C-alpha cells in the first residue's frame, strides 16, 4: 500500500458497493465478494472513526485538563 486511501474514498467505495448490491443484478460470486469487501470497508471505516474518536477525545481531554488547571489557579 503505497498510498493510503482516504476515509471519504473508502466511504464512496462502500456506497458504490451498496448501490450495486441494492440494484440486485450482480452475479452471485461477485455479489459475495463485493459484500465481503463492503463488510471489510465498513470495519475499516469504523476503525478509522474509533481511532479518530480516541484521538479527538484525548486531545480534548488534555485540553480540558489544561483549562481546569487554569480555572483552579484563578480561584486561588
Amino acid at each position, binding site marked *: 500500500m503505497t498510498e493510503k486511501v482516504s476515509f471519504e474514498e473508502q*466511504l464512496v467505495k462502500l456506497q458504490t458497493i*451498496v448501490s450495486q*448490491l441494492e440494484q*440486485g443484478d450482480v452475479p*452471485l460470486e461477485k455479489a459475495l465478494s463485493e459484500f465481503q469487501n463492503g463488510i471489510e470497508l465498513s470495519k475499516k*471505516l469504523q476503525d478509522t472513526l474509533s481511532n479518530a474518536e480516541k484521538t*479527538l477525545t484525548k486531545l480534548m481531554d488534555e485540553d480540558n485538563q489544561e*483549562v481546569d488547571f487554569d480555572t483552579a489557579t484563578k480561584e486561588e
Partner: protein
Amino acid sequence: MENSEQYLTVTALTKYIKRKFDVDPYLGRIYLTGELSNFRLRANAHQYFSLKDDHAKISAIMFKGAFEKIKFTPEEGMKVLVTGRISLYEASGSYQIYVDSMQPDGIGALYQAYEQLKKKLTAEGLFNLPKKQLPMFPKRIAVVTSPSGAVIRDIITTVQRRFPIAQIVLFPALVQGDRAAADIVKQIERANEIGDFDTLIIGRGGGSIEDLWPFNEEAVARAIVNSDLPVISSVGHETDTTIADLVADVRAATPTAAAELAVPVLNDEILKIKQMQQRLFQAMNQEIKFDQQKLAKVKESYIFTQPTRLYERYVQSVDLANNRLRQLSDSYQQSWLQQVQLITNRLSGKQISQSIVNQQQQLANLNIRLNQAVQTNINNQRQCVLKLISELDNLSPLKIMSRGYSYITVDDQVVKSVSQLQKQQTIKMNFEDGSAVAEIKEINGD
C-alpha cells in the same frame, strides 16, 4: 386801548439786549482784574463766582475746559487777572463775564521769570528726561534742607517709623534768600561726590512764591538734573510747583510723603518676604499636588485598576474558538458515524441470501426437469424398441414353419433345388422347433 403790537415780549427785549452785548467790539475780549467772591470750588464742573472791587461786582462763569487749564487753585478773596467776554444770560436776564483764563494778580515779575525758565527748560527737554528709579531699600539717604525746619523732623520721624535701618544724613542748606540756591546746589553736589548714598531728598516748607524762589532757579534745576542720585523733591505746599519739583525724579507733596516715597515699611517688607516664602511653599505644594493628581488620574485608568481587561477580550476569543472547536469535533464525529452507519445499515446480505434461495429453487426445478426429460427419453426409446421387437416377432419365418414347413441346409446354405443335392449327402433339416440331420438317398427331378 393801546395797540398790543407796541409792547415787546421779555424774550424779544432780552434777545435785543443780548445782541447789543455780543456785537460790541469792546466787550468781545476784555482784561479784567478783581477779587474772587462767592467762590466755591466745584469738582470737575463749570465754576460760577463773582469778581468784585471796592465799589462794583460782576457775575462770572468759567467753563470746565478753561478752568482745568489754570495752574493754581482759586480761593475766596484772591486777587486775580482774567480775560473773557461779556454776554447776557437770557434765562436770568443778568449779564456776566465768561472767563477764558485766570491767573493770580500781584506776582507778576517772578511768575514771568518762572514761566520763562520753564519754557527754556522745556525746550531743552529737561522735564522729559528719564526719571531715575528710587531704590526700594536705601541704606543711606541724603537730605538737603534746613536743619532747623520741620522738613527734616518730618523726614526723620517718618523714616524711623517706617524703615529705621536706613541712615539719614542731613546736608544742611539755606532754603530761603539770595544765597540759598548756591547752598542747595553745593550740598547736592557734595552728596553726589561722597557717593555712598542711595537717595537724595531736597525739601522746604510752604511759603510765598518769593520764599520758594531758590527752588525755581536754574542752577538748582541743573544740579538736580546732574545728580547721579535719584532726587525726591518736596518744596512748598502741594499747590506750589517749583522747577525743582519738575526736574526731580519724584515729587512729593510733603516731607512726610517724601520720606514715605524714599523708604518702605520695614515690617511690611519682612512680611512680604515671608509671604513670598509662603507663596513658594504653597506654589510648590500646589505643583506637587497637581502633579500628584495628574499621576493619580493616569493611574485611575482601567489599565492600572483593571489590567486584566488588557487580555480579557482575548480570553473570550480563545474560549469561543476552543468551544467551537469542541462542538465541531462532536458534530464531525457524529456526521462521520452517521455516514458510516447509514451506509453500513444498507449493506445487508439479505438480498444475496434471497438470490441464493431463488437460485436453489431454480436449480431444483431444473433437476426435476432433467430427471423427467431423461426418463421420458429412455421410455420413448424403450417403446420404440418394444414395437420393433413385436413387429419382428410377427415377421419371424419360424411362424410359417409352424404350419409344417421346414427347410434343408447344407453347410448352412439353404437348399432351394434338388440339383444342389447329391446322393448320400448329409443334409440338415430345419424345423420350427429344432433341426434333424438326414442323408440323401435318392434324387428325383421333376
